[in-house]
C-alpha cells in the first residue's frame, strides 16, 4: 500500500500534442481516486503513466515515496484491471490468477493458498479449472480482479473495467469493487467516463479536460460547488441547466423570470452584465406542489412545457427558452465537448412524479434560488463558488472514508476469513 503523488506530469506525443498537461495530484494511502472526463481528456493516458506502460515526458511520478519515472511496470508493483480484461486465454482461471505469483517464483502451496483466498472473495471457486473462453463477461471481469488482488500490490489501477458489461451487471460489479476496496484498504485509481461510477465509487474525483485537471474534490463538492462551467455540466444527470442572465441590482433577469441573489453571491457577481446561471434540474418544482414554508425561498415563473418524461419515481419536463446567439454557440460548444449534442436551448426540469403538469400547456414552476450558481460566460469560471463549504464537504468525505475502511476491515477479517490478507498482508 502506498500513496501516489504526481508532480507536474506532462505527456507529449510525437506531434507535440500534450495529452496530459501539467497534472499535479496527490492520492492518499488507501484512497479511492476516480479519474473522469469526456473521451480524449487524457485520463487513460494518465493511468498508463502511473503503471508505467506510457513514458512520462516530464514531471515526477512518486509512488510510496519513491520516484518511479524510470522504472519498468514490473518494478512498480502495481496491479491493473484492463478494459478488455486481457486474460490469458491459454491458461485456466487458476493459472490466470496465479500468474503474478508464479512470476514472483512463489512456492506452490503459497500460490494455492492465495489463489484460493482470492477466488473465495470473488466467488470463482467452481470456475478455477475452466478456460476464460468458457466464462461469462462478469466472470471474466472477476478473474481479472482476482489477478489484481492476489498480489500484495502497492495500488490497484482500473481502466474502465465495467464498460464492457451490461447495465445490470455493471451495477452489481460496482458495489462489489467498492466493497473489495474498502475491505482491502488499498490505494485505488479508477478511470471511467461513466459519472455514476465516478459519483458512487470515489472518495475523491478528479475531473480532466483536454489533459488538464479542472477540479479534484469529493463527489458532493463537485456536485454542489463546481469550480467552472465544464465541471458543472459534466457532473450530474440530467445535466445542469445554463440560462443566460443579466444583472439588475441584486436580481438576475433570466428567461424564467428574476432570481434574487443573497448578499454573498450578489457581491461576487457585481459589476458584470451578461452572465450564465447554472440551475440543476432538481432545484425546480411544480409550483402547486411546493410547501408554503419553502415557497418564499425561491421564485415562481410560468412557462410552456414542450415534452414531459414520466419515469415512475420521477418526472422530467423540457422547457425551451430563447438565448442570445453568443450564449447559444457557447452552450453548443460545451455540450459537444461533453460528448453530447445539444440541439436546442431548453431547460430540463425535475418535477414530482405525481405532478399533473402536461406537455404542450403552460404551467407554474418554482425555482429554488438558494443553490443556483452564476458563471462567467467568457471564462466559464464559477463566480459564486463557496470554496469553504466545498472544502467542508470533501473533509467530511475523507472522514467517512477512514471510518469505512476501519469498519470494513474489522468486518472483513471476521467474516471473509483471510480476504484482507490476500491483498493487504
Amino acid at each position, binding site marked *: 500500500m502506498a500513496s501516489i503523488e504526481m508532480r507536474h506530469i506532462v505527456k507529449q506525443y510525437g506531434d507535440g500534442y500534450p495529452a496530459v498537461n501539467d497534472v499535479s495530484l496527490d492520492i492518499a494511502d488507501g484512497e479511492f481516486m476516480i479519474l473522469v472526463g469526456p473521451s480524449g481528456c487524457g485520463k487513460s493516458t494518465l493511468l498508463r503513466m502511473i503503471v508505467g506502460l506510457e513514458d512520462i515526458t516530464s514531471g515526477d511520478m512518486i509512488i510510496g515515496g519513491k520516484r518511479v519515472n524510470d522504472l519498468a*511496470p514490473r518494478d512498480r508493483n502495481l496491479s491493473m484491471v484492463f478494459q478488455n*480484461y486481457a486474460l490469458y486465454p491459454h491458461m485456466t482461471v487458476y493459472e490466470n490468477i496465479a500468474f503474478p505469483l508464479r512470476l514472483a517464483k512463489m512456492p506452490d502451496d503459497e500460490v494455492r493458498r492465495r489463489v484460493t483466498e482470492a477466488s473465495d472473495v470473488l466467488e470463482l471457486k467452481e470456475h478455477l479449472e475452466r478456460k476464460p473462453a468458457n466464462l461469462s463477461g462478469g466472470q471474466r471481469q472477476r478473474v481479472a480482479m482476482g*489477478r489484481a488482488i492476489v498480489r500484495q500490490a502497492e495500488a490497484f489501477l482500473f481502466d474502465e473495467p465495467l464498460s464492457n458489461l451490461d447495465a445490470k451487471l455493471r451495477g452489481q460489479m460496482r458495489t462489489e469493487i467498492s466493497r473489495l476496496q474498502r475491505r482491502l484498504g488499498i490505494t485505488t485509481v479508477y478511470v471511467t467516463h461513466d459519472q455514476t461510477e465516478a459519483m458512487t465509487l470515489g472518495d475523491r474525483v478528479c475531473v480532466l479536460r483536454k489533459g488538464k485537471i479542472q477540479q479534484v474534490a469529493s463527489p458532493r463538492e463537485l456536485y454542489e460547488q463546481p469550480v467552472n462551467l465544464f465541471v458543472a455540466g459534466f457532473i450530474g444527470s440530467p445535466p445542469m441547466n445554463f440560462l443566460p442572465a443579466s444583472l439588475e441590482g441584486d436580481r438576475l433577469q433570466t428567461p424564467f423570470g428574476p432570481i434574487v441573489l443573497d448578499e454573498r453571491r450578489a457581491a461576487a457577481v457585481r459589476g458584470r452584465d451578461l452572465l450564465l446561471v447554472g440551475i440543476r434540474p432538481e432545484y425546480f418544482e411544480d409550483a402547486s406542489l411546493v410547501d408554503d414554508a419553502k415557497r418564499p425561498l425561491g421564485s415562481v415563473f410560468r412557462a410552456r412545457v414542450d415534452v414531459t418524461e414520466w419515469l415512475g419515481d420521477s418526472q422530467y419536463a423540457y422547457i425551451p427558452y430563447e438565448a442570445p446567439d453568443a450564449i447559444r454557440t457557447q452552450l453548443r460548444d460545451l455540450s459537444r465537448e461533453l460528448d453530447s449534442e445539444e440541439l436546442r436551448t431548453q431547460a430540463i426540469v425535475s418535477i414530482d412524479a405525481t405532478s399533473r403538469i402536461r406537455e404542450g400547456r403552460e404551467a407554474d414552476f418554482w425555482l429554488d434560488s438558494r443553490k443556483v450558481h452564476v458563471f462567467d460566460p467568457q471564462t466559464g469560471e464559477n463566480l459564486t463558488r463557496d470554496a469553504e463549504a466545498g472544502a467542508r464537504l470533501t473533509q467530511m468525505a475523507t472522514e467517512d472514508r477512514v471510518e469505512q475502511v476501519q469498519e470494513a476491515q474489522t468486518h472483513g477479517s471476521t467474516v471473509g476469513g483471510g480476504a484482507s490478507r490476500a491483498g493487504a498482508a
Partner: protein
Amino acid sequence: MSTRERTWWWVGGFLIVVYALFPIAWIVSLSFKDASDIANQSFLPTSPTVDNYTTILTGSASGLFLPALRNSFGICLIATFISCVLAMFAAYAIARLDFPGKRLILSTALAVAIFPVISIVTPLFNLWRQIGLYDTWPGLIIPYLSLTLPISIWTMSAFFREIPWEMEQAAQVDGATTWQAFRKVIVPLAAPGVFTTAIIAFFIAWNDFAYGISLTSTEASRPVPAALGLFSGASQFEDPTGAIAAAAVLVTIPVVVLVLLFQRRIVAGLTNGAVKG
C-alpha cells in the same frame, strides 16, 4: 442456402477434388505397375506389384534413395526450425515495435521471396565451391532459409498482429520481463501461427529441386527431389518410371502426415476469451 444451390456446391467441390487428386492417383497406380506394364494403356496395373518399392528401399536404387531421404529430412527440418525461430523474433518486432526501416524489411522480404531461384543458382554454385559449402548440409540449409524466411516473416507478423497488445501489457504489469511476457504469453498464443508457418516453410524446402540438383553432387547432401532425377532404369532402353513413381509416393507421405498431425494445432481463434465478449 437452397437445396439447389447446395447441390451445385457439392458438384463443384467434387470436380475440384477429382481434378486435384487425379495426378496423385495416377502416380500411385504407376508405382504398382511392372516396367513392362507402364504402357498398358489403362489406368490400373494389369498385375499389381511392389517391385518398384523394393527397388528403391532395398534394391539397386536404395543407395541413391535412402541417403537422399535422410538428407531431405535433416536439411528441411533444420532449415524450418531456424527460419521459424528467426521469423518469430522478426515478426514480433515488426508487429509490435515502431522502428525506422520496418517497411523496408517487409518489402525486402517480399522481394527476396519473388526473386527467381534459377538466376542465383549459378553464382551460388561457384561461391559454394570456393568456400567449401558445396555438397554439404549447410550449403543447402542457407539457400533454403532465403526461400522460407520471407514467407515465415509475413505469415507470423500477421498472426502476431492479431494478438491484443493488452495481453503483454497485462503480463508486464503482473511482473513479467519483456522476455517472460513474450515466452509465457505471446508464444503460446502464437503457437497456431508458428505451426502453420512451420508447415509452409517445411513444404517449400521439401519441394525444392533447383538448389538440390545444383549445389550437391553425392549422397552426402543430395535431397530426394534431386535423387529422383538421377534414377536409372534396369537397362538403357528402360525408363525408371515405376521407381520414380514409387519414390514420389513415399516422399508425399511425410507431407500428408505432417498436415494431418498439425491440423489440430492450427485452430483458429485460440485467443477466444482473452478479451471482453
